[in-house]
């Protein structure tokens, strides 16, 4: 038995020692490595865009570049960068999340002026994804509060998309009530009474709705709604465009402190710049993000429905810092309506 044990112990020891050898840190084939910390629904966009950038960068400079990505709820991702996840660039769901990183000194506070279009190379909006044939007859925001309708949306505390969803509903209610904030609060509160589960990120909610079959309507990024139809087939879901929604501007920025330490500023800036090029814009449109470039936008005009879009800088919201403070901070309007 002792012999038995010894051979078992030796085997275990060999396995323990061999495993790190098998690990052998990834061979740095690339000259430069870049980390893009992004939000949930951009996985498909950036996996294609990273390939495009690597090709272009190699052609221009002769250097190879490897781009790593990390995806999750926008607020959670911002928190990780603040805690030390060394992103060279952040491509998040809304400006406030990058503001939060800037507030800790990781990048200049005027980051949003450093790139065109509020540093948002593409835009999106919030639409409804419903089950095929729209059995609950959902046409606009007020249909979300009808009895028996279950609404799927993520948690605005952790998800950027969820905050856009919330503000879209708020903008609609303000318009309906002629600017009455109390009525808007009651209406948005009523919508959240119809939410059976709050996921942490937009992709989690999409999977809850599409794959697990929970709920009647998913409040979704337009790109996420198109992607779901593409993934699961046109015979499963319909997209409903409400009368009014919010213009979502997902911004991008170079994280100054990290690129200074890693010596990657030049490549990080080139990466973001390519997003604004014709090629980058076309790729965004192909992935159902609304392009900024007028020519590309025109070419894809038939894809994206026109609707009334309210921006975050509308006096009703007063920009992200104010909206964040009013609605999503601890004890803010969302906490008040969700705890009731």
């Amino acid at each position, binding site marked *: *038995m*002792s012999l038995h*044990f010894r051979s*078992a*112990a030796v085997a*275990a020891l060999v*396995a*323990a*020692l061999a*495993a*790190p050898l*098998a*690990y052998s840190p*990834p061979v740095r084939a690339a000259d430069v490595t870049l*980390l893009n910390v992004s939000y949930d629904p951009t*996985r*498909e966009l950036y996996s294609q865009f990273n390939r495009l950038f690597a090709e272009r960068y190699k052609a221009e400079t002769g250097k190879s570049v490897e781009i*790593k*990505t*990390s*995806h*999750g709820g926008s607020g959670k991702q911002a928190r*990780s960068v*603040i*805690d*030390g*996840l*060394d992103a060279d660039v952040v491509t998040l769901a809304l400006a406030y999340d990058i503001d939060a990183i800037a507030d*800790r000194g990781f990048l200049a506070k005027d980051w949003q002026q450093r790139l065109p279009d509020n540093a948002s190379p593409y835009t999106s909006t919030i639409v409804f994804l419903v089950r095929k044939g729209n059995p609950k007859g959902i046409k606009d925001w007020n249909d979300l509060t009808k009895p028996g309708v279950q609404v799927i949306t993520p948690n605005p505390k952790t998800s950027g998309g969820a905050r856009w969803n919330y503000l879209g509903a708020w903008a609609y209610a303000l318009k309906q009530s002629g600017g009455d904030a109390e009525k808007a609060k009651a209406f948005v509160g009523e919508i959240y009474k119809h939410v059976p589960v709050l996921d942490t990120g937009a*992709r*989690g909610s999409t*999977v809850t709705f599409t*794959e697990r079959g929970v709920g009647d309507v998913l409040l979704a990024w337009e790109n996420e709604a198109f992607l779901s139809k593409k*993934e699961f087939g046109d015979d499963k879901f319909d997209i409903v465009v409400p009368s009014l929604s919010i213009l979502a501007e997902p911004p991008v920025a170079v994280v100054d402190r990290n690129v200074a*330490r890693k010596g990657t500023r030049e490549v990080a800036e080139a990466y973001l710049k390519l997003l604004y090029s014709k090629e980058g814009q076309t790729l965004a449109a192909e992935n159902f993000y609304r392009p900024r470039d007028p020519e590309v936008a025109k070419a894809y005009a038939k894809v994206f429905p026109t609707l009334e879009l309210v921006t975050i800088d509308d006096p009703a919201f007063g920009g992200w810092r104010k909206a964040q403070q009013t609605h999503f901070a601890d004890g803010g309007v969302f906490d008040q309506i969700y705890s009731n």
Partner: protein
Amino acid sequence: MSTSPVGDEPALVKALVIGLATGIVGLLIVLPLIAVFAQAFVKGWDAYLAALVEPDARAAIRLTLLVTALSLTANTVMGLVMAWAITKFEFRGKSLLISLIDLPFSVSPVVAGLVFVLLFGAQGYFGPWLIDNGWKIIFSWPGITLATIFVTFPFVARELIPLMQEQGTREEEAAVTLGAGGWRVFSRVTLPNIKWALLYGVLLCNARAMGEFGAVSVVSGHVRGETNTIPLQVEILYNEYQFQASFAVASLLALLAIVTLLAKTVLEARLGRSGGGH
């Protein structure tokens, strides 16, 4: 005249209870296990293998093996030291130490992860200094290893302490009397007495280390091909609509569970025969 009450039960009740118990295990444990493999092979062998050799999946497997090997080594050594100290010596605060060993079992894995963010994050106590000096702890493999060591810490010590307590110190004392040195006492007397319990603890530790999700998720940063372990990679693939690939990777963990179960059965038989002392 009295027989055991269980024996008195009508055959129908007996069949019903046994059927119910089997049904519960089948429904809650066997069926999901089958479902994992069914989904993993839904597109056939080629797709299954393709999912496992995909670069990000391979990186996840490598990282999991590295983290597990480091955690097992650390926890085996620390578990032995803890058990040795507690069972062979008398000192103040011993019962407190015993309670503290169990702490990782009662702390939520999310909290376990956050503790390390608090210590080593850029806003944490040691983070700024570490980052300035080029050390990456969290959002990298050292942090993932630390979190794994934390959640799997009790397994080895927990298995060893009761056994070593029961065995007492008489054999070691005898060995010392006969002139054996410290290392000799350990390798010739103590280790042979505890070997099966030690392996059992290491086995449980291994299963948990490879499967840990919560604590690792907090300190991972989710960088593709770099800081995702197998469980994290499973979630990512699932969220990317790659259901078959996700279950293919998940089947590795399911296989691990089955192997662990078999090894556990063998070890329990050994423990039953030789573990209880002499």
